[in-house]
């Protein structure tokens, strides 16, 4: 609980002290002591630029500044600014979301994604509430299950189950899409028997009119017209 109550964060400008938001000043002081005491030498002379996280009142700010400078030999160079803490984080967030609005596309997802940098082998199951990105191959007998979409930066030969909670707008995209079986929501398809070697172009599978269809996701590229 109190583990991350006080976190030192290094940036280009210097150290920031990130304070957990729902902590009162007393526990912050306790935590600060716990954190700094054992490695006092290390922190001596450190340049603290500012506090982040919990908004501090003027009195709290001064108190903390005092403790850090007097007891631990740190330097607090920043000045107290009204709500200094939260603004920097908020600024970042607003920047992010506004950049999405500027994109000329629909189909932009800001959902969480799990990244797997590995070959997923037979018998391995990756089940995630969100999207899954596999940087590697998915071998036969492996099972990828996501409540969102699945992207494989390699060859998928195993079973992919996108939208496992019933989201039919999710898709399965792969650099080389040759799954044993594809599932989106509760719709199941399988590769045709007597697997004829297909063109290895990047493809994606999605639901259209209640059925799973597979199509190249770069339809205008020359390589797809072969």
């Amino acid at each position, binding site marked *: 609980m109190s583990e991350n109550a006080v976190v030192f964060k290094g940036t280009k400008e210097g150290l920031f002290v990130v304070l957990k938001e729902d902590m009162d000043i007393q526990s912050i002081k306790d935590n600060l002591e716990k954190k700094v005491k054992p490695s006092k030498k290390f922190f001596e002379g450190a340049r603290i630029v500012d506090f982040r996280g919990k908004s501090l009142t003027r009195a709290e700010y001064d108190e903390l500044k005092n403790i850090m400078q007097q007891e631990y030999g740190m330097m607090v160079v920043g000045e107290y600014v009204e709500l200094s803490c939260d603004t920097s984080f908020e600024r970042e967030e607003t920047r992010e979301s506004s950049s999405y609005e500027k994109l000329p596309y629909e189909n932009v997802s800001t959902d969480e994604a799990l990244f797997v940098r590995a070959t997923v082998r*037979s*018998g*391995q*199951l990756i089940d995630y509430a969100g999207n899954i990105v596999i940087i590697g191959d998915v071998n*036969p*007998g492996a*099972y990828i299950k996501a409540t969102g979409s699945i992207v494989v930066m390699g060859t998928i030969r195993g079973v992919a189950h996108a939208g496992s909670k019933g989201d039919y707008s999710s898709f399965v995209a792969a650099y080389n899409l040759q799954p*044993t*079986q594809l599932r989106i929501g509760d719709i*199941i398809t*399988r*590769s045709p*028997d007597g697997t004829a070697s297909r063109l290895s172009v990047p493809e994606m599978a999605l639901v259209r009119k209640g059925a799973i269809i597979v199509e190249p996701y770069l339809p205008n590229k020359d390589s797809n017209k072969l």
Partner: protein
Amino acid sequence: MGEVIVVTSGKGGVGKTTTTANIGTGLSLQGKSVVLVDADIGLRNLDVVMGLENRIVYDLVDVVEGTCRLRQALIKDKRFNNLYLLPAAQTKDKNAVNPSQMQKLCLDLAEEFEYVIVDCPAGIEQGFRNAIAGANKSVVVTTPEVSAVRDADRIIGLLEANGLKNPQLIINRLRIDMVKRGDMMNIDDMIDILAIDLIGVVPDDELIVVSTNRGEPAIANEASLAGQAYRNVVRRLMGEDVPFMNLESDSGFMSRLAKMFGFKKKK
């Protein structure tokens, strides 16, 4: 009430899965209703050998855990009407099922099918105990190698200790030319050690590899020597008295066996 036959060997790689697939397909070719059960949870292969991997939605563990009904998990073979497969789970392990659950499953299947063929995993641990739990008949597969025969012997002992009397033996991957040269164990030696009934000798056959990779059991292939041998095994399993069984104690067994295979080949 159908028969529940477990196909086992102890040692891995001697051809349990191939044998299961071929016997099952052969029985269904004879007009019997058959279900193949893959008890090799976590290392399933039978679905691949049968070419049914891409049809799996539910598996044995789902049935046992009650996630689905038994009927939903059964996969109908793509060529033969009265042949079904109950696939193993791949993302679980042998401990996902216990022997009493397997016993009930086999009983349920035996209600509906004339033959239930259980493909046993290699080893003598939980997977083996699960696979034999519901069986009332057993087939032991071995190859003409000392290690495989040693393991088969151990398995026969365990089967008998678990109430499966009179296991039947299939000798797989026999190379007649090597036996003649004395480079391979001969059939009489193996029977001498194992002392159980022989119901088939399957010669080493390249077509087995081809058919395994294609997902089409060799027994349906008229040109395959091994396929012919499996057809004989199937008839013996059904209680028929097929010739070369009577030859086993004969001194001229090998030559007559070879002659028989030669003859069959022409057909």
